[in-house]
């Protein structure tokens, strides 16, 4: 058997790797470190403190950020839940209904939003809402988020469903289960890890979104990302670093959860 070429032997592999890792993570690490800075400057280190975290929770701008955080959280939960239900139904229809005309096109259509530049979706969504006279506000953000979360929820759900052989549902039907019972008692429990993973991914995508939200939000309605952007426009204060670090922590937590949820039960066959 031919040995795989060992990538580590290529000249310059190590420095290139380190450079990439540095470029990816250095800004995040600097922000995280400076969020604990006991100084009003964003560049001069003045010792360790939690004053900017205090500022986020109890400072003069705390009400604005709190409201934005609540909006973000409510929208993320509602959008991820709805998108997960729709994605589960779509996956069931596409993977468990045999072949139908336009199956290939359906796959492409549901995943296309991942490829469309977000700014295009944002502009199009705004034009669409104003065309149908849907006044902007929390609800427009929610509708927009549901729509772009669907493909993100769909991917892990469909991947999971593809891994479950149809013979389980056939066995259930053979044992007198209706199609609905076969779905509810067999397919759905087996899909739970995929569904959970899809939900968490959709949640984090919604929580994170700036471009579309910024276009379709009404005046005075802010989510965390738009609130941070608004604050940065008036100059970067260290409290922005604290709030960004908090958001980063939540993101990392959810992505990690999503990863482990997707792996649950993968070993049992």
């Amino acid at each position: 058997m031919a040995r795989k070429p060992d990538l580590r032997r290529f000249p310059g592999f190590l420095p290139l790797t380190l450079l990439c890792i540095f470029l990816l993570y250095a800004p995040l690490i600097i922000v995280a470190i400076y969020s604990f800075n006991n100084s009003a400057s964003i560049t001069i280190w003045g010792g360790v403190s939690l004053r900017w975290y205090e500022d986020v929770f109890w400072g003069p701008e705390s009400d604005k950020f709190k409201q934005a955080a609540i909006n973000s959280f409510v929208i993320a939960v509602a959008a991820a839940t709805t998108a997960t239900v729709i994605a589960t139904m779509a996956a069931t229809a596409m993977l468990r209904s045999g072949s139908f005309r336009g199956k290939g096109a359906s796959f492409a259509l549901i995943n296309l939003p991942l490829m469309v530049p977000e700014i295009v979706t944002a502009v199009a969504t705004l034009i669409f809402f104003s065309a149908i006279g849907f006044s902007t506000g929390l609800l427009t953000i929610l509708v927009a988020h549901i729509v772009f979360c669907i493909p993100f929820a769909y991917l892990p759900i469909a991947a999971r469903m593809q891994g479950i052989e149809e013979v389980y549902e056939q066995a259930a039907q053979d044992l007198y289960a209706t199609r609905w019972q076969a779905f509810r008692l067999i397919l759905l429990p087996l899909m739970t890890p995929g569904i959970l993973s899809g939900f968490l991914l959709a949640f984090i995508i919604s929580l994170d979104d700036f471009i579309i939200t910024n276009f379709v939000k009404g005046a005075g309605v802010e989510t965390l990302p738009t609130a941070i952007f608004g604050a940065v426009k008036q100059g970067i204060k260290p409290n922005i670093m604290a709030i960004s670090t908090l958001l980063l922590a939540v993101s990392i937590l959810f992505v990690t959860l999503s990863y482990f949820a997707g792996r649950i039960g993968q070993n049992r066959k």
Partner: protein
Amino acid sequence: MAESQGAIAVDIDNVSKLYGNFTALSAVKLAIQDNEFFTLLGPSGCGKTTLLRCIAGFEDISQGAIRLYGDNIADLPPNHRPVNTVFQQYALFPHMDVTRNVMFGLLRLGRSEAEARARAGEVLELVRLSQFADRMPAQLSGGQQQRVALARALAPGPKLLLLDEPLSALDLKLRQAVRLELQQIQHETGITFIFVTHDQEEALTMSDRIAVISDGEVQQVGSARDIYEEPDNKFVADFIGETNLIDVSVAEVAGDKALCTLPGGAQFTCPAARGAHSGQGHLSVRPERVSLADPAGALLTGTVTRMIYLGTDMNVDVRLSDDEIVTARLQNSSRTRIPAMGATVGLEFEEGAARLLVD
């Protein structure tokens, strides 16, 4: 037994199944008797599994009727057919323990939790798995999973049990043990079994009757002895066990007897399969029915080209004058005369050992 006049459990009446232009089943007719262990035997892709799936309700039939004790079930969905299946891959529900797997069908039929649990206990007893009732399927060996699958299918008390190559994933020793067990369980429960396999030994040892299937058509139906000793056609003779197919010219067929001319010119009268006709044909003779003889006056003569040692037996290949090879299986005993390689030998077989086939 097979020939007794029991009620017809399953009547497969002219069933065809088409996938586009491909004919998976072609006008299949079978009458399976009550309490029968019936096997569908054929090579992979012959349509036997398709037929099973049509009976279970996972495939629609293109034409014909499937009657279960007189009721046409061909248009019912699988959950409305009193038929249960043991799947090839078992398909145990991985998120339920053994007991809940076995209870599944009973609960769907509306039995109470307590009733279903009691019945599951009984069936697990039958397949000797009581001590594993609380295990998850992933914690069981292949043989145990197979028995859970059997228990799960038996628990609702189906009128008909379908088994789709349930032994193919087991190793040889286990397979032989499970064969006996399956037969025993079939006798104890009195449920009609339809068993699908490509393994002729499995079919011959377990079945009351066997249907040999090839290319979506039933080639022959009969007991193990019928299809082994009285094959109707070339496919059946060749597929079941080993056989010599000797080219003959047939002078005439009268009733169930045929007058043939063997290669080398000897005249020979033998039984003929139904539908055999005069002209060119094939004679089937099992190797163990061929014996060596003095070349002078023998039915066939040729030279020994190969000898294969098989332990209890020895296969001797003899090349005839027309280059056909005929194999004789000799018992390995001190009394057997083993010929030398390249020797000229004669071959003999009794009239009843040969059979003129339909090509």
